[in-house]
């Protein structure tokens, strides 16, 4: 699903240049649930941003589902993001004046899907994350866990090829974190490819594979025995 070869990225900080990614090679197959781990500054968020086409690599190759991702203009990147990728952010990033339903439906709006279909589909995914009754509440009326579940529904509504989650439990307590991870695991069970950036060990171990990043290179890449989150959820 994802192939990356010799990815480099550096940031200019005034006169210094900060080399963040120093030749990343890795690939993700369909249906995988991968945790990208590393301390802050290891380059894990940068990697995720490049995977998400929110940022551009300096050199290297990135192929997403057989399509080489390079030299994209803004419009094309937006279309690819919309079609191929679903984002889940640490700070949820819901639009605060839209209801849960409207937030979930927004990616479909940018796909040009009709209003009725949009709403039906959004409702279906809200139901999947267990928030059917909350569909007409705005984010400020929702708890952190509920917000993140709305965000997950939004990421899924366009049926993307890959879900990208950046510290998706960073703003949640551990109980809520496990609930959210339980949901992620269930989504993965349905065959969705998911990449999770995290620096929390327990969250990482709920994935099927852990990629360790340190100082811009992959130091470890191993398959693990998945810990099911459901055992922590009543």
């Amino acid at each position, binding site marked *: 699903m994802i192939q990356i070869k010799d990815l480099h990225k550096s940031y200019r900080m005034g006169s210094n240049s900060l080399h963040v990614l120093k030749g990343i090679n890795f690939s993700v197959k369909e249906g995988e649930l991968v945790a990208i781990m590393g301390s802050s500054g290891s380059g894990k968020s940068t990697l995720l941003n490049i995977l998400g086409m*929110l940022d551009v690599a300096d050199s290297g190759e990135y192929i997403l589902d057989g399509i080489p991702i390079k030299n994209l203009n803004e419009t094309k990147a937006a279309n690819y*993001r919309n079609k191929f990728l679903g*984002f889940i952010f640490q700070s949820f*990033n819901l*639009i605060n*004046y*839209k209801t849960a339903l409207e937030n979930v439906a927004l990616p479909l709006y940018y796909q040009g899907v009709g209003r009725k279909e949009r709403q039906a589909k959004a409702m279906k995914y809200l139901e999947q994350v267990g928030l059917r009754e909350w569909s007409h509440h705005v984010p400020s009326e929702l708890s952190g866990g509920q917000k993140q579940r709305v965000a997950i529904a*939004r990421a899924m509504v366009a049926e993307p090829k890959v879900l990208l989650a950046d510290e998706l439990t960073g703003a949640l307590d551990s109980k809520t974190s496990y609930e959210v991870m339980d949901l992620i695991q269930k989504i993965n069970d349905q065959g969705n490819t998911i990449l999770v950036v995290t620096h929390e060990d327990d969250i990482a171990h709920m994935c099927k594979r852990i990629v360790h990043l340190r100082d811009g290179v992959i130091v470890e890449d191993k398959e693990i025995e998945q810990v099911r989150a459901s055992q922590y959820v009543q």
Partner: protein
Amino acid sequence: MFSRDTWQEIFLSIRKNKLRTFLAGFTVTLGILIFVSLVGLTNGLKNTFDAFFGNDATNVLSIFPGRTTIPYKGYKSNRVIEFDNTDLEDIEANFDDFIEYISPQITRSALTTYKQESNNYTTRAVAPGFQYSEKTIMMKGRYLNQTDIRERTKHAVIGRLVENDLFGNEDALGKYIDVGGSVFKVIGVYQDEGGDNEERFIYMPYTTRQLIEKNTDKIGQMVIGFKPEIGYNGAMIFDRQLNAFLREKKFISPDDRSGIFIRNVADQLKQNQQFANVLAIVGSIFALGTLIAGIIGISNIMVFVVKERTKELGIRKAIGATPASVIGTILLESVFITTVAGYLGMLLGVLILNSIGDKLEKYFILNPYIDAGLAVTATIILIFFGAVAGYIPAKRAARIKPIIALRDE
């Protein structure tokens, strides 16, 4: 771009961000309102001016005889100057190129009687041309003509209010009235926009007046209408030459300030018009300033709006909004708000101007109005600059990478 969905997005955004919408709209409404009011009030001032100075002809010279104060060419000072028929003829002969008409004006007060009614009126003994200098409008009958002058007819043209006073509801035309002891036939009734006083005169042929006054040839003062095509400069030259000619003929020193007086309406008019123009310019500057302030205001708010929405735009981009759709949404929203607000301001301004009417006449403002085209243009300018002011930050916001926009503060 103009689909129902787009509008739903925009209306939702407007409904859910009332303060932002209000700020942007209020700036535009206020800007246009003040603009319309200022232009309207300036126009009102101009109306007052036109009403003041517009009711008499402007191509008129009045010549008044005076009393000399300087001995000249063997004549003593303190000599009374008088005009007579030869002066009329001489002026006509010498200044034919300038003159459209010339009329003497002999003013007398006379007790006027019709049946039981009588009253004191000012009579003016004039030539037919006088009608043009006063812009006298005939309601019925006719004005004095050359035959009246030649035949010395006892014909009178009376003002609307004279007819009112003396005849009540009766028709004055063809009736005979006693004017200071002589019987005149009323041949016409006139009105005048210059006010009530102007409608209480009685006009008669000057030759008839001279006959009544023991066949004198004195003519009081003179009124000359010059050809409009000679323009302001021509009028000034005519003024100077006429002055010199009359002083020469009447033996008045060129330095004598009170031998004769020439009042040139064109000169006064020019001054008044200059004053009115200065007023208009000042008004325009203020109006333009308001418009610019409005543009700056809406620009500021648009920058603020886009800044406030940076994060939202980042989210939208992350989930698939193209830069074009981001810019489109912002622009459409801002143009929609400014259009509605601008129209509201225009409507409000016009409403205020209309409701003023003549209520502010005390302050020299009469029937203020604004040219519809100008008001619409000003509104469109404001909308346009609102859009431009929104476009620049919107374009920048659309270009910001979503990660930067989404970065937590």
